[in-house]
């Protein structure tokens, strides 16, 4: 009985953690690489989930909808970055406080707009595999967790390859490293940053699809995710993509163990406790370099 519960808690935790990594991926790019504290990212993810829900209500597969919606989200990300950059980066040093307040306001507007358009009802999707489970011995893996959990490694793998083996990807890593050196070598850092922000925004719709396959989503679902997403990015070490998935799984497993053996009502505090502990004890994260 205990073993059964333990094994399943670990299994659920790994899958949840992988989903958290998907959520945090956009933040790992904007915050970890570009140093833009985009606390509106979870709100983008929720918006992505709503797009997927709307597409699904016309009978399309959630993942198909998400892939199609990548392009509009990328473009929206470009536009949003342009707005942000015009406001702050041109003035010289970006004032972190004003930037945070801006993102806070934006996430609020996104959430409230969703609330007014769709109401407080939770949105969900219909897919054939929801409700079934893959059973391996003691372990039972529900497909509604397993399918989205597989999205994260795929997405992170693709992005890692992109960042290491393409010209634009290497330029993104370069802009994180030294912006001035990049402009000396003849590449416009603004263009690269805008492109990276667009990619980060595009990951939000995939993460949104993952989120809504797991369970119903309401407009303020992003609120709890802010902590998890930042906890993942900080614990991983700024900008480390493979670290993102390890950190996500660590947090997911801790949460599901607490939920299984203490009480589910304590679970939301787990990610934040890990976040605060990381900030206090090891600000560079697990896989980050000390700066």
């Amino acid at each position, binding site marked *: 009985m205990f073993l059964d519960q333990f094994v399943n808690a670990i299994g659920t935790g790994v899958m949840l953690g992988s989903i958290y990594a998907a959520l945090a991926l956009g933040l790992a790019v904007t*915050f970890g690489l570009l140093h833009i*504290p985009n*606390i509106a990212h979870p709100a983008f993810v929720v918006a992505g989930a709503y797009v997927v829900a709307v597409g699904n209500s016309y009978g399309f597969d959630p993942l198909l909808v998400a892939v199609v919606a990548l392009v509009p989200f990328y473009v929206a990300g470009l536009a949003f970055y342009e707005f942000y950059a015009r*406001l702050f980066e041109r003035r010289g*040093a970006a*004032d*972190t*406080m*004003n930037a*945070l*307040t*801006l993102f*806070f*306001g*934006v996430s*609020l*507007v996104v959430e*409230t*707009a969703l*609330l*007014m358009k769709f109401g407080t009802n939770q949105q969900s999707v219909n897919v054939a595999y929801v409700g079934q489970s893959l059973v391996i011995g003691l372990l039972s893996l529900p497909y509604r967790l397993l399918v989205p959990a597989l999205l994260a490694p795929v997405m992170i793998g693709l992005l890692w390859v992109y960042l290491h083996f393409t010209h634009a990807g290497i330029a993104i890593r370069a802009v994180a490293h030294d912006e001035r050196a990049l402009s000396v070598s003849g590449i416009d850092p603004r263009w690269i940053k805008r492109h990276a922000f667009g990619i980060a925004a595009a990951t939000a719709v995939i993460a949104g699809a993952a989120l809504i396959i797991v369970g119903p989503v309401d407009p*303020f679902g992003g*609120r*709890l995710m*802010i*902590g998890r997403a*930042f906890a993942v990015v*900080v614990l991983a070490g700024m900008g480390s993509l493979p670290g993102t998935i390890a950190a996500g799984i660590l947090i997911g497993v801790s949460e599901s163990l607490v939920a299984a053996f203490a*009480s589910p*009502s*304590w679970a*939301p*505090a787990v990610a*934040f*406790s890990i*976040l*605060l502990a990381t*900030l*206090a004890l090891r*600000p560079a994260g697990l896989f980050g370099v000390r700066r």
Partner: protein
Amino acid sequence: MTAKASVMTAASPRPRAPARLPGNRTLLFTLGALAVLALGGVMTQTLANPYVFFAAFVIVQSVALATGWNVLGGYAGYINFGATAFYGAGAYTAAFLLKAFDASIFLCLPAAALVGGGLGLMMGYMTLRVQGVYFAIGTIALVVMAHTLVLNIDYLGGASGMALMAPEPPAWTGGQVQFVFLVMLGIAVLAVACARWIEISWVGRGFRALRASEEAAECAGVPTFKLKLSACAISGAILAMTGAPLIFYASFIEPETVFGLALALNAIAMPLIGGKRSWPGPIIGAVLLGSVQQAATITISSELNILLVGVVLIGFVAAAPDGILGLIDTLRKGRR
């Protein structure tokens, strides 16, 4: 490179640095504060409609909240998304004392301030090694942890909240609402006086140095560590004290409203709209936004209300980061 740049920003002369002569102005300020208190007292004796006090309580609470937030956020430049963690800690401290010991509100206020100050110190310690963004995220974490903690304590009513009857108010105030309104007015005046003292004393200069550049301040011999902790503690104490009268005002307390978004948003939006560099800013912002919201919750939906505040907030961050006071400053300079 960055260190050099930040030293330069810190060293560049601030445009607005009038030679402050505390003597006269402090006298004026004290008289003004007393006048405000007296006016509140007169209002409770003359105005019959209790609704006025329900609304006025909320606006005065906003003033105290915005001022408390501004000590840390405006003066020291540490953005705090977790004003509700402190507010909630104060509110639940008072509720606990009322439930357990039937305590008077005048005992609850210092107790709440102590708890809030302690929480602020803890917050400061935990985020001591990190700056800026991490601090802000840490404050979000604090809210969720406080919220989760309260949800799991049955004695405090858990998720469903609890209703408590406040003890009888002194007879001369005319009623519970009038009494709590007066107490809140006192807290607000105290908060503003405290903020003003910080602003004109060496503590405020230290906070401004922190805001401009922590590295440069440290190099110049400013005790950044102590200042940061005291900013957290003072701000936390004021915010918690602001929360304490809630149970006496509403006779009911629940986690969703106490730790809710609307309060946290207001605590940030009000100083930002009014101007976060000096003490009148949060007052202007709180009175403006508070009155508009009081009117708006009656006439339009509360969702639209939040949306409106969000849009106004973005507008101010984008166009006038120093708020209404900053706008006035720029206009004056343009005329000269």
